[in-house]
Structures are given as structure tokens and as C-alpha cells.
């Protein structure tokens, strides 16, 4: 009896499994027949292309974001490190760098800045404040010698906002006060075209104001041998840097003299044209006021030309002075500098030597 019952249960279970399996097979077969198997390759290819496009867009966006964000982040890190070193607030330095980058981005979006390279790299982080009193800050370097005590002067490379120039030359006074400058109004006309290439300057007229106007020795460096550095780019802290600065000043003065010479040529051309206009207007019997106005413009042109001629002459003299000064420094201190450089030990107190 028991055997019969077990047989019935096994039979019922096997029959159920077989019936279920048949039903599943039948259903699967019906689904397979109903499935659309056309263009399978195209469908797979479309999926692959879509996935590849999405991946490329993601990678490109990631790279672009990285290239824009990382330089700013690096500047922020440098600014924070610099601020921490100088005892300033790192948060303020970070905010300044971020604001600068944001401003640049806004300018590019607005179209006021054409160079897109300016976006990712903002201007340098705030310069570290020198260990000097606030009165010697670079914001007021018009009379640095008068305002800053000895040793509290800011380094040269922080001179960024050129103040008004010192007053007229007074060799007796080491510090020049600011002159009574009457700044010209902002120009309303478009900037000038590139000035015509000036001819090579003639030989300098000689250092008329130098205390030792001896001829430059043969070992003196040649003039205009290096490109002109930006103002304040050379920090004078020794003989070598002083000579380098003086030679840079030679380049500067020569370029200014060339600029003035080119301006003299341009203004001379304007004078000739205006002379012709005045003569023709006179022949055409224009009224006296009109002729006087043209003559007044002509006269002012002559004044400007004379001013630029003087500029050219003073530029040549300044270049000669700078060159002579560089030669003199080399002549006086070059040998000592070379000896110190050749020695294996640093120089002791100056008073130790030359006894």
C-alpha cells in the first residue's frame, strides 16, 4: 500500500513536470516565431554607435572641464600657500583668484577679451606682501626714497601700477617728488597704425651728464644686445643685476629715441600737407579767420615736432649715459665680482680687504 502511494506521488510529480515543460517550450516557440529578426546587425550597430558617441561626449567634456578648472585650482593653491607663508588670509587670496578667473571668463563671454587663452590662467596670484611698512607699499612708489626707510623698500618686481614720474632732474636730491603732471585726456580716435620702422640710431652723442664720461672699455657689453625687459623685471641686488638694468635702460632709451624720431617724420609729413592746404586756401581767397585757423594748427604741429625732436635728443643722451654708467660699474666693480665668483668662500666684511 505504501509502495502504491509512493508510485502515485512520483507519477503525479513527473507528469506535472513534463506538462509544465511542454507548456514552456510551446510558449517560447510562439514568442520566437513572433520576434522580428530583420536588420539585427543594423540594430546592434546603432546601439554601439550611440554608446560610443555618449562615451566620447563624456570624455571630451571631462577633459575640457579639467583643462579649465585645473589651472585655476592650481593658482588658488599657490595663492593660499603664498598667503599662508606671508601671514595673510588664505580665504581672501583664494577668493581673489577665483573672482579674477570669473571676471576673465565673463569678459571672454562678453567679447571684450579676444584671447581665449586668458580664461584658464588668471593673472598671477597676489604678490606676497614684503616685510615692509604699509607706507612702502608699491601703491605709492612716486617718492620711494622719501616714503620708505632704509631696508623697508619693496622689491622691484612688484612695481605694477606706474605712478607719475619724478620731478625734473635735481642731482643733489636723491628722491624726486612727483611733478605737476597734467595728464592728457583719453584719446577719442582709434590707436595709431604701427609706426614706420625707425632707422638705426646714430652713434650716441656722449654722456654729457655722467660724472666719469670716460670712453667705454673694449670689454663693455654692446648696446641693444638683449630684448628690453618689462619695467621692474630686473631686481637690482648686486653688481651683475645693476649692469643688466643699466643695459636694459640703454635699450629702453634707444627705443624711445627711435619712437620720437619716427614721430618727427610723421609730423613733418603732416606739416607739409597742411602747408599745401594753407597755400591753396589762400589762393582760393578764403576768409582771414579760416586762414588763421589753418595757420594755428600748422603752428601747433611745429611745436609738437620740436618737442619730439628734443625727446629724440634726450633719448640718445640718456642711452649714452646708461651705457657709460654700465661701463663704469663694470670697470670699478667687475674685477671684485669676478674674484668673489672665483673664490670658494663668500666675501667677508668689505673692511677686511684692501688694507
Amino acid at each position: 500500500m505504501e509502495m502504491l502511494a509512493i508510485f502515485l506521488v512520483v507519477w503525479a510529480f513527473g507528469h506535472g513536470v513534463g506538462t509544465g515543460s511542454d507548456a514552456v517550450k510551446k510558449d517560447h516557440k510562439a514568442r520566437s516565431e513572433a520576434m522580428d529578426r530583420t536588420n539585427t546587425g543594423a540594430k546592434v550597430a546603432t546601439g554601439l554607435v550611440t554608446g560610443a558617441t555618449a562615451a566620447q561626449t563624456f570624455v571630451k567634456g571631462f577633459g575640457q572641464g579639467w583643462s579649465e578648472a585645473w589651472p585655476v585650482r592650481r593658482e588658488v593653491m599657490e595663492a593660499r600657500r603664498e598667503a599662508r607663508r606671508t601671514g595673510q588670509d588664505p580665504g581672501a587670496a583664494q577668493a581673489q583668484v577665483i573672482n579674477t578667473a570669473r571676471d576673465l571668463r565673463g569678459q571672454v563671454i562678453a567679447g571684450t577679451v579676444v584671447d581665449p587663452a586668458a580664461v584658464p590662467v588668471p593673472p598671477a596670484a597676489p604678490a606676497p606682501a614684503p616685510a615692509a611698512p604699509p607706507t612702502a607699499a608699491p601703491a605709492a612708489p612716486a617718492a620711494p626714497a622719501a616714503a620708505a626707510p632704509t631696508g623697508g623698500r619693496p622689491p622691484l618686481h612688484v612695481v605694477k601700477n606706474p605712478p607719475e614720474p619724478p620731478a625734473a632732474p635735481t642731482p643733489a636730491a636723491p628722491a624726486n617728488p612727483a611733478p605737476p603732471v597734467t595728464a592728457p585726456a583719453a584719446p577719442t580716435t582709434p590707436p595709431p597704425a604701427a609706426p614706420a620702422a625707425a632707422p638705426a640710431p646714430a652713434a650716441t652723442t656722449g654722456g654729457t651728464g655722467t660724472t666719469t664720461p670716460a670712453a667705454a672699455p673694449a670689454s663693455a657689453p654692446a648696446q641693444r644686445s638683449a630684448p628690453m625687459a618689462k619695467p621692474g623685471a630686473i631686481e637690482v641686488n648686486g653688481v651683475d643685476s645693476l649692469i643688466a638694468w643699466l643695459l636694459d635702460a640703454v635699450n629702453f632709451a634707444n627705443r624711445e629715441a627711435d619712437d620720437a624720431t619716427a614721430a618727427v617724420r610723421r609730423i613733418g609729413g603732416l606739416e607739409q600737407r597742411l602747408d599745401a592746404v594753407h597755400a591753396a586756401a589762400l589762393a582760393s581767397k578764403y576768409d582771414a579767420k579760416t586762414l588763421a585757423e589753418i595757420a594755428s594748427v600748422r603752428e601747433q604741429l611745429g611745436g609738437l615736432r620740436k618737442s619730439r625732436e628734443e625727446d629724440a635728443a634726450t633719448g640718445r643722451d640718456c642711452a649714452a649715459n646708461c651705457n657709460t654708467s654700465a661701463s663704469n660699474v663694470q670697470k670699478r666693480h667687475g674685477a671684485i665680482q669676478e674674484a668673489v665668483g672665483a673664490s670658494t668662500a663668500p666675501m667677508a666684511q668689505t673692511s677686511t680687504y684692501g688694507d
Partner: protein
Amino acid sequence: MAEITYAQVQAALAKLVAETGAEVTAAAQRRSRLAAKATEASVVYDRTTDLKFDVLTLSDVGTVRDRLAGQAVSAVAAANAANDLNATARSAAKAIEQRHGGINSAVASATVPAAHESAYNNRL
């Protein structure tokens, strides 16, 4: 035929205004450059004083500083002269237009050629 027409005078003055405006811009830029260089020279002089260079070297650097300062002052003068020149050229062009522009327009729009100028200048 006149030696120069009104339109030619105005064209010449307009060109002069543009070119003197360019001189104004160039002079202003030069003024800024020289001001920066003069300030830099003053700082360099102080630095050489701190480094206790000899008197002759200090005098040399001081001369350079004074030269650059003089150039900066003359650059300011040149910039002002260029500004004045540009303003004079503008005012001259405007005044000549006020004086002769109306006559030019009337002659140009008349249906007949204008008579001799004395016919108009001889007023009652």
C-alpha cells in the same frame, strides 16, 4: 576753378584730426612707459644706496635716474601738446564748417551755377 575746394579743405582737416588723434594715443602710451621707467630708476638708485656702492657709481646711477625723470617730464609735455593739437584741429574743422558749410550746401543744391563771389559779398 579754385585752388582748393571746401570739400577738399574739410577732407584734409578730417584726416589731420584722425592722424593727430593717433599721435595723442601714442604720446599717452609713451608717457606711461616713461613714468614707469622713471619710477623704476628711482627705486634702483635707492637700492644701490642700500648696497653701499661707491660715490661715483651712485652718481652715475643718479644721473641715469635724473635723465629718465627728465624724459618722463618731457613726455608729459609732448602728450599735452599732442592733445592740444588734436583739439585745435577739431575746432578748426568745426569752425570752417560753420562758416562755409552752409554756402557750400546752397551752391551745390542751386539749379544754376553760382555767380561771381562779389555778387554775393557786396551787401547793401
